């Protein structure tokens, strides 16, 4: 879960990491009082949950109130990598003498927390690692291990700093590490960490990613109105509908509705359909023991999508049992006239019971199964995928003629 720059800076300030004086602007009327308070020149920074703002025109320096108003108006119309701008951080312009980098993250190879510092900043640390690895120093710590100020003094000293600035940098390092542990972070970066012409050290930006799975124990963040949020830009209407129903779902650009069961097979089934020459219309994680109502909801998402010509379904009953799956399918088919051709395979826990539910429903109401093919354990999954692709080709021809 990524934080906005202004939220990250609020955390920095709470820990005593100095940041430039700034205020958040949410609408055009707020510009004037904010500029009067902060003064000119000022920096206007679009608040979006993505990197590369500067290159996309999301950061502007203004020297007059008129310019500030005009720029705010323009920024509110800007879209950066799919993110609309609706908040702008207004900060006092700082005269920078040197830009540095400081970050804390988890080293996935070593399962340790790593503090990374560089005497070069303002660019991605990955770039520095490639071009000038000697400018990067690291400290590794096990989880819950303490960090001491002398360790950071040593680190920054190796990077060429001394005196008051050395002590200030070390303090910021200890504090950032403390925040990382306290708030269950995945990543905390200050880039750039700036030394001003006046010899102060300031965090000019914040890039923070917290663990959404630990939010339950972060009540302090909720008090600061930092809550779980969606991070991936704008959602399509169907993605929104799915999200509201708690179904992991993404729109893709093909014509085969994917109803695969499970997250892992959800990912792999896209590969399977592609390898066999088909085009998936979506990703969906339809696993995890869904109720019949939920299954009906999932299948409805696909049937209502005009781009979908046919549906590929699979159920391997583990936690999610086949009888529940069959009940959900029958419930959906009985409730609505909406149809798309489907090829579905079902096996795993309670598959015989599931097949009996289908057989019984077919006996009672054969018409609801028109265009719907259900396969069992005897048919390999790849054959069912091929069949779904054929059904989609037929339906697409029919639609076009």
């Amino acid at each position, binding site marked *: 879960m990524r934080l906005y720059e202004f939220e990250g800076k609020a955390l920095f300030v709470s820990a005593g990491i100095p940041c430039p004086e700034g205020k958040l602007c949410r609408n055009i009327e707020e510009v004037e009082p904010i500029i009067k308070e902060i003064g000119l020149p000022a920096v206007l920074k679009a608040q979006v949950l993505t990197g590369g703002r500067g290159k996309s025109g999301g950061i502007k320096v203004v020297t007059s109130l008129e310019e500030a108003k005009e720029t705010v108006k323009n920024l509110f119309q800007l879209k950066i990598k799919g993110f609309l701008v609706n908040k702008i951080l207004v900060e006092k312009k700082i005269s920078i003498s040197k830009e540095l980098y400081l970050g804390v993250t*988890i080293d*996935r*190879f070593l*399962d*340790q*927390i790593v503090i990374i510092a560089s005497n070069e900043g303002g660019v991605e640390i*990955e770039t520095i690692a490639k071009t000038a690895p000697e400018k990067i120093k690291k400290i590794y710590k*096990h*989880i*819950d291990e303490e960090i001491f100020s002398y360790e950071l003094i040593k680190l920054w000293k190796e990077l060429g700093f001394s005196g008051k600035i050395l002590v200030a940098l070390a303090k910021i390092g200890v504090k950032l590490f403390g925040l990382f*542990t306290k708030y*269950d972070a*995945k990543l905390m970066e200050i880039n750039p960490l700036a030394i001003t012409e006046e010899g102060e050290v300031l965090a000019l930006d914040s890039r923070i990613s917290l*663990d*959404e*799975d*630990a939010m*339950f*124990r972060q009540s302090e963040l909720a008090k600061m109105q930092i809550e779980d949020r969606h991070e*991936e830009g704008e959602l399509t209407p169907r993605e929104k509908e799915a999200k509201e129903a708690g179904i*992991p779902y*993404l729109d*893709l650009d093909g014509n085969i509705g994917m109803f*695969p*069961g*499970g*997250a*892992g*097979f*959800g*990912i*792999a089934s*896209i*590969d*399977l359909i*592609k*390898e066999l020459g088909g085009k*998936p219309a979506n*990703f969906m*994680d339809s*696993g995890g023991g869904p109720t019949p109502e939920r299954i009906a909801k999932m299948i409805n998402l696909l049937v209502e999508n005009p781009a979908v010509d046919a549906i590929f379904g699979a159920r*391997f*009953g*583990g*936690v999610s049992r086949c009888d529940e799956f069959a009940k959900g399918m029958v419930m959906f088919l009985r409730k609505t006239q909406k149809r798309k051709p489907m090829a579905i395979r079902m*096996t*795993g*826990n309670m*598959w015989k019971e599931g097949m009996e539910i289908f057989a019984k429903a077919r006996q009672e109401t054969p018409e609801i199964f028109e265009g719907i093919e259900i396969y069992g*354990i005897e048919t*390999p*999954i*790849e054959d069912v995928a091929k069949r779904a692709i054929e059904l989609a080709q037929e339906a697409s021809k029919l639609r076009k003629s």
Partner: protein
Amino acid sequence: MAILIDKNSRVVVQGITGKAGRFHTKMMLECGTKVVAGVSPGKGGEVVGLVPVYDTVEEAVKEQGANVSVLFLPAAAVLEATIEAITAGVKLVVVVPEHIPLHDMLRIRKFAHQYGARVIGGNTAGVISPGEANVGIMPEMAFKKGIIGTVSRSGSMTYYVADTLTRSGLGESTCVGLGGDPVLGSTFAEILPLFEKDPETKGIVLVGEIGGIYEEQAASVIKQMTKPVVALIGGKYAPSGKRMGHAGAIIEGDMGTAESKIKALKSAGAYVVEKFSQIPEVFKNLLLF
């Protein structure tokens, strides 16, 4: 022989009195797993089916000789429950719940390492040695005892691999679900050497997916192995920056792409396949049986 669990495994279910705990205890017992105890603080003295319930893991170990634990608990309770099991002397803890806080997983890994214990998961379907023991939530009917070891980051993929191996007659020695969370109790690199040493296992299937570094990390281990490793990586066509169901399945920048994983595995000598049906073909070509 099998790895991690076998017919001598004595299983304690932590969280046995919950809905999932009860249901899966029944399922595990039905396929012959020796579920000898359950733990649910405050409910000591009760029984679930025929399984005695204790207040602590320590009692389950003392009274019933439990040596494997499986967790059916909320994510927030996993850290404590795992530490309790390990300090009570349990050497294998299977964490079924998902979305365990990352920092807790680091704590769990550190703790398990200190005590010489092994943790599997979170978000795992469990571990099964077909015909011997099934710890977790995997459907027994998909599996058949045999000569292939499987290690996988995805439950649903594991079932399709099992289906394929059963169909081809190869069967499985042990199937290990590593789990779908981003930081896992055990990794490919830690499980592969166990299969390499297991005389019953003749070849290994590694099922990976986008996100993280575990497949890349496995490459250096695969280089040292004598047994063939067939790898299947999910997410070749996954869009970047989008989370695909599993918390761990997200491509961030250059990291965690299917391409990077496939490249690392191939250069280590693994046989990377695109489809389930190719798995038995590779083993058959290697004249494994």
